[in-house]
């Protein structure tokens, strides 16, 4: 009977552990939405301009900054990382060099983002003299995310079964055609998943951008050289400096908004991914 008793006890213990996690999860999500959802969806907050010292500021420029930054970062990092990934997985001969590259990339990937922030500030903001600007933030974020993006893309390219390549080659396709027609399309879901994670990371990123893109702006940034204030950084700023009288409202609302944004992006990316894959699957050789 002993094993059976142990079995029963263990089951209870695991239910408890699971319960705690669910509790934490529910608590946080409910708290975020409970506190901030009304503020977040308030048009004045959503579409208003921020106030430095007064109550009642909005966050529109921050939202725009976030989206702008995300777009810019992806525009920089996606092509580079994809190119590198294709090179590494399809063309480069396995050897010391590729392994060294991979090791560096892996190390970079696990470097705390604040170090990138430091680096970005020194290089882009001061050395290049771009000042706090979207472009500096975007480059920093791009470098920050490049390793993840590249490795996840490479992984998904690698996980495309070799049999696809063989099949394509044996039908008389060239290597480049094979990559374009078969390998990339079938790696798309993996690449997209990596991209989605990256987007989430950019939206939520604060450490790397507060001293590169900027902390606070009143106007909606338009040019890449403008100073910007992505939402996550702004929240941090608002609560550490506590200069705004209703900073709690701003932070709560901002948190809810951020969460919504993350959810939205996830959802959209999934949609796009599915659509793209379907198109690719049905699409012809020239697609």
């Amino acid at each position, binding site marked *: 009977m002993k*094993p*059976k008793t*142990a*079995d029963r*006890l*263990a*089951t209870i*213990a*695991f*239910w408890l*552990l*699971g319960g*705690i*996690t*669910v509790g*934490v*999860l*529910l608590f*946080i*999500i409910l*708290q*975020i939405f409970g506190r901030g959802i009304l503020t977040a969806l308030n048009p004045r907050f959503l579409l208003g301009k921020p106030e430095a010292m007064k109550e009642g500021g909005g966050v529109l420029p921050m939202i725009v900054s976030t989206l702008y930054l995300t777009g810019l970062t992806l525009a920089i990092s996606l092509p580079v990382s994809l190119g590198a990934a294709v090179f590494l997985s399809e063309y480069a001969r396995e050897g010391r060099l590729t392994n060294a590259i991979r*090791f*560096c990339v*892996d*190390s*970079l990937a*696990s*470097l*705390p*983002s*604040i*170090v990138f*922030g*430091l*680096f970005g500030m*020194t*290089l882009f903001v001061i050395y290049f003299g771009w000042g706090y600007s979207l472009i500096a933030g975007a480059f920093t974020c791009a*470098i920050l995310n490049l390793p993840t993006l590249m490795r996840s893309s490479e992984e998904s390219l690698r996980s495309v079964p070799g049999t696809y390549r063989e099949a394509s080659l044996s039908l008389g396709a060239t290597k480049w055609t094979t990559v374009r027609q078969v390998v990339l399309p079938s790696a798309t879901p993996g690449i997209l998943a990596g991209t989605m994670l990256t987007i*989430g990371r950019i*939206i*939520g*990123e*604060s*450490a790397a951008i*507060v*001293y590169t893109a900027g902390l606070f702006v009143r106007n909606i940034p338009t040019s890449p050289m403008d100073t910007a204030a992505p939402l*996550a950084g702004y*929240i*941090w700023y608002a*609560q*550490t400096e506590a200069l705004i009288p209703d900073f*709690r409202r701003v*932070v709560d609302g901002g*948190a809810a908004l*951020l*969460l919504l944004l*993350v*959810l939205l992006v*996830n959802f959209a990316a999934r949609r796009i991914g599915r659509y793209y894959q379907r198109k690719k699957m049905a699409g012809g050789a020239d697609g």
Partner: protein
Amino acid sequence: MIFLFIFRESIPAITSQRFTLMTTNWSPNVTDPAAGQYGMLAFLNGTIFTTLGGMVLGAPLGIGTAVFITRIAPARIGGTISRGIELLAGIPSVIIGWFGLTLLVPQIARWTGTSGYGVMAASVVLAVMILPTVAALSAEALKSLPPELEEASMAMGATRWQTIRCTLLPAAKRGILVATVLGMGRAIGETMAVQMVVGNARQIAFSLTERTSTMTSRIITDMGESTGVFRSALYAQGLVLLLLAMMLILGVKLISRDKRVK
């Protein structure tokens, strides 16, 4: 390239302050950076202390949750929880930090009669931060175990707990270890949330409720105003973080290489 850059930037600090980097005295001088003292031992200690705290709380919880959602809970509940965990992973760290600040710190303050800032708060926040990483990756490791293993064990007359303990956990050991190490990486590198609750004192913490700083929180705090050797000292901290990161990577590599052999 980035390594080189960081290394070069930290040279001034290393050369000029060779002996003081490993002390606890951190008294930067903003106007004349060269005159300040830049001992980072306190922050190193803070980093390790908070990380360990986070791990002790977060890892068992994460692994337990992973087992729960993959093997114990009915499929529907398990699925819902794991989707929730993914969501938790997507919550920006500032928000978690904000919660730590507004809910946790006052609670701790009330219980212990201190300010509430400090290692304990930071550990709890970190535990929450790494929970999704550990839980999701461990769950993945458990899920990717061939179902035949479980069947084999059950077919030999093992109870569910015996199966989990003697077969599934050992089989997923490497995946779980990797999950834990990655969670640890996240804990070490975490900046904002920790900075918000750790108290940012320039002292070594000997108890759970003392204020202290971690290396990352110190960088973010001082980054805006640093120049010269001061900034270089921040870079030196970055370098230490980098080395830690590389060690972790090597660790993960070793673990997973093992796996490939077997």
